[in-house]
């Protein structure tokens, strides 16, 4: 951050930042830090997570909240140790700060399977953690928020608590050891309470106490207890403002259109009609397209639609979907091997001369499309840039914005916002670049850019397309060999490329959900192939595992069927850990797996381990008189080590299952003439309420502490396909399933 940015503070006013539950706190802290101002006489910034003024306690929750409840969970962890009750503090996303580094991402970055605990793998993880810490990499993703915060954010809270006790001790002369804390106050032995706010000035003058002890779980008041998520009320009254709802004084509205053939330029355009339309202020070229600035978003969108565009042909990928599939199919070749991730036993020998079961699977492109379309507010001044939007990588936002204007990254002040969903969409930068490009042509004027839904669809970098060609052998009612070959686009590699970086080494997401199957099969090989030259792709809720889980578990189901085994018992017998067995046994019990099943019904099970969280799902379907399939019920068991908020946990698991099912049933993006053919929700629906089954959820507090945002997604598609097989005898090996069956 730069000293002069404090000048921005005085000139920019954010209208309508709210003080309601979970309200956003803008500005002063960021600018105070930016200007190098240390804690003032009445402001105690005890650490980057806690700020106390005579009026207010603010807990900074730097992980982006994309609907997963990150703000509430982070605040809960800090408040637990600080002895704060909900309602006694505000929250804020905090400025960009290397102290908020996320080393829980390390496991997803190293080219080793999650089940690999060899010294080489552990060394690589340690090195990745160090690199993240040294670089101060701040990112929300990979279901890593809870893992990242679980200990460190509690330590931040404990530090604040002990520092406040030290301040009270200094003021009263009572030894800190004789003081206790409760409900936002330090309590003296005589029962007198000093509210934390009253200690702000004192706390600001003493060094933070660093040597602190964390509470034992048995003493917890908040963690693991059903609590009211802090943002619920503001989201129910409409008071909570998302990025798209924010307004800055003097702001103009804008929208953009870019070449739907992603990455190709706008050759020419005729805006003569659009320029004369009501409300239009300015029409200007931006990278790959055009922006319209107007007095109202709708005027801007109408005018953008009235421009005649001459788009260049697609240059980075083939124009037609069939060519994309052909490119995937052609990638099963030695020179495209990304990595042989697992090679147990001797697969070639086991396959040779045996009766080989082979099957090919496909996963299409799908869109992210959170309900809040891409948007951003930017104001560019000579001395810096100020930005308001929701994003999962604040640090990268600074770099991207600065690169547009020639400012330095530290001159970009970024105010993260509540996001109306993400599912990986807010890891991209199209909205940032567009807002800054436009604002740079009208320095001093804040510009709010909102993508139309159609534009958001057309510019969405989809989930990777992929195929699997699997082979296996069963003998004596056992799976003796499995040989997974998976060809897919590296979404992460594609993202790196757009950020001007280059991925080094194989993509761990290529193996996630398949190479790390927690099964002992004597001959087990998994080979990942890189698909190049197709659509750019991006991380989509559960990333590699979103397609790999379907490829792997469905095929295990096929092999167990060929072996004449019960799908659930068969999986339990394959498990190589007690935790995996526990999860399967739990879901068996929940679903009454061996219980009676009505006519025309079938149950399917799937088990996938992704982002360190093994999840088993059982789905029961019925076949209706017209042949339509109805999902009757879903049962889920997941192991996360520790459930921080049980209500939110259940909500997220249910949402993850619905996400996985809805897209597996109903959605694909297809290219024609270089552009995707789906441009709004009627063509890419996900799930709606009428298709939504009851979903029963159970958490096992076993294994490492991990997050639950993504792990429930991968088992949903295979569990449904396996259930449909059980009910109808028909194997579905390609998503979306609605191409083959009707859902009712």
């Amino acid at each position: 951050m730069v000293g002069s940015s404090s000048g921005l503070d005085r000139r920019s006013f954010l209208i309508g930042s709210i003080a309601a539950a979970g309200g956003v706190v803008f500005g002063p802290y960021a600018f105070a830090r930016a200007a190098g101002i240390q804690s003032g006489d009445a402001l105690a910034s005890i650490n980057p997570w806690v700020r106390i003024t005579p009026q207010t306690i603010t807990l900074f929750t730097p992980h982006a909240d994309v609907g997963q409840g990150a703000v509430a969970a982070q605040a809960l962890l800090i408040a637990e140790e600080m002895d704060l009750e909900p309602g006694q503090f505000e929250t804020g996303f905090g400025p960009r700060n290397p102290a908020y580094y996320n080393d829980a991402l390390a496991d997803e970055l190293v080219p080793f399977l999650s089940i690999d605990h060899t010294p080489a793998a552990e060394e690589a993880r340690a090195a990745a953690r160090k690199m993240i810490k040294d670089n101060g990499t701040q990112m929300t993703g990979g279901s890593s928020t809870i893992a990242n915060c679980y200990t460190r954010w509690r330590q931040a809270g404990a530090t604040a608590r002990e520092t406040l006790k030290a301040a009270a001790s200094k003021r009263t002369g009572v030894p800190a050891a004789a003081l206790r804390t409760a409900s936002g106050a330090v309590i003296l032995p005589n029962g007198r309470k000093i509210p934390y706010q009253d200690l702000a000035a004192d706390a600001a003058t003493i060094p933070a106490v660093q040597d602190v002890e964390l509470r034992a779980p048995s003493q917890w008041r908040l963690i693991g207890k059903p609590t009211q998520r802090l943002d619920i009320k503001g989201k129910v009254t409409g008071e909570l403002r998302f990025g798209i709802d924010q307004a800055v004084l003097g702001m103009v509205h804008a929208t953009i259109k870019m070449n739907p053939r992603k990455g190709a330029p706008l050759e020419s355009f005729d805006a003569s009609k659009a320029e004369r339309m009501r409300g239009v202020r300015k029409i200007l070229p931006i990278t790959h397209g055009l922006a319209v600035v107007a007095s109202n978003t709708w005027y801007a969108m109408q005018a953008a639609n009235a421009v005649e565009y001459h788009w260049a042909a697609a240059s980075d990928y083939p124009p037609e979907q069939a060519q994309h599939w052909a490119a995937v199919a052609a990638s099963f070749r030695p020179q495209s091997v990304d990595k042989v991730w697992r090679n147990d036993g001797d697969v070639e020998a086991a396959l040779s001369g045996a009766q080989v079961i082979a099957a090919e699977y496909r996963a299409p492109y799908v869109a992210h499309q959170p309900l809040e379309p891409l948007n951003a507010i930017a104001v560019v001044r000579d001395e810096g840039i100020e930005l308001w939007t929701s994003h999962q990588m604040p640090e990268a936002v600074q770099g991207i914005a600065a690169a547009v204007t020639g400012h330095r990254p530290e001159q970009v002040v970024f105010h993260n916002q509540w996001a109306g969903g993400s599912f990986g969409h807010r890891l991209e930068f199209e909205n940032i670049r567009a807002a800054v490009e436009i604002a740079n042509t009208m320095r001093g004027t804040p510009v709010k850019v909102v993508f139309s839904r159609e534009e958001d669809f057309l510019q969405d970098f989809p989930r990777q397309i992929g195929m699997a060609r699997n082979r296996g052998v069963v003998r004596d009612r056992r799976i003796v060999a499995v040989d997974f070959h998976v060809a897919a686009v590296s979404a992460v590699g594609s993202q790196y490329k757009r950020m001007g970086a280059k991925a080094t080494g194989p993509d761990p997401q290529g193996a996630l959900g398949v190479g790390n199957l927690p099964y002992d099969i004597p001959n087990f090989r998994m080979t990942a192939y890189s698909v190049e030259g197709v659509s750019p792709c991006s991380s989509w809720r559960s990333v590699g595992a979103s397609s790999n889980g379907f490829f792997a578990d469905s095929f295990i189901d096929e092999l167990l069927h060929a072996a004449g085994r019960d799908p659930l018992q068969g999986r339990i017998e394959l498990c190589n850990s007690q935790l995996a067995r526990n999860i399967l046994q739990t879901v068996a019990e929940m679903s009454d797996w061996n219980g009676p099943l009505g006519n025309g019904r079938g149950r399917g099970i799937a088990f996938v381990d992704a982002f360190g969280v093994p999840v088993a799902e059982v789905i029961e379907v019925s076949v209706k008189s017209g042949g339509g399939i109805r999902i009757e019920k879903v049962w889920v068991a997941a192991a996360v080590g520790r459930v921080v908020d049980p209500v939110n946990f259940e909500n997220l698991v249910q949402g993850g299952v619905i996400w996985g099912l809805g897209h597996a049933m109903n959605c694909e993006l297809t290219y024609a003439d270089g552009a995707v053919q789906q441009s709004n929700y009627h063509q890419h629906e996900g799930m709606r309420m009428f298709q939504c089954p009851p979903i029963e959820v159970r958490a096992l507090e076993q294994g490492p502490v991990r997050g639950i945002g993504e792990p429930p997604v991968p088992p949903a598609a295979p569990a449904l396909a396996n259930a449909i097989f059980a009910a109808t005898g028909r194997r579905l090996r390609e998503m979306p399933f609605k191409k083959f069956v009707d859902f009712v």
Partner: protein
Amino acid sequence: MIEVTVNGQTRRVDVAPDMPLLWVLRDELGITGPKYGCGIAQCGACTVHIDGRAARSCQARIGDLNGRNILTIEGLGPRSLHVVQQAWIEHQVPQCGYCQTGQIMQAVALLESHPQPSEEDVARVMSGNLCRCGTYLRIRAAIHAAAAKLQEN
């Protein structure tokens, strides 16, 4: 000038008559509870009440609304929370929350026309409101809880 009543207040706007109510509310009046999601009545995030009936504000042209009564989430329970909002809080429905103001306005209208809705009623009426986070089970539970509460009162 077009005159409408929004949440009990008379508001005058000078805009193109074919501007959708949604954009009048959001960009002209600063009322941001109704959300832009799709613009073509596929998601329901923009749902408001026009003369007491749920409507997609992205499809209602402001020029057709002269003298009409508009209710948005901001006016639903100005002093105390509406029973449906209370149920939404009790069941902790939202995840990202972006669709929820529209869901709530649709649910309020549903309970006004069907005080004791069946599962089918709920599925039929609420299936027009998309939730990308997948909170449908909690929406369903909250609607039935609100219906029971309204029955008591």
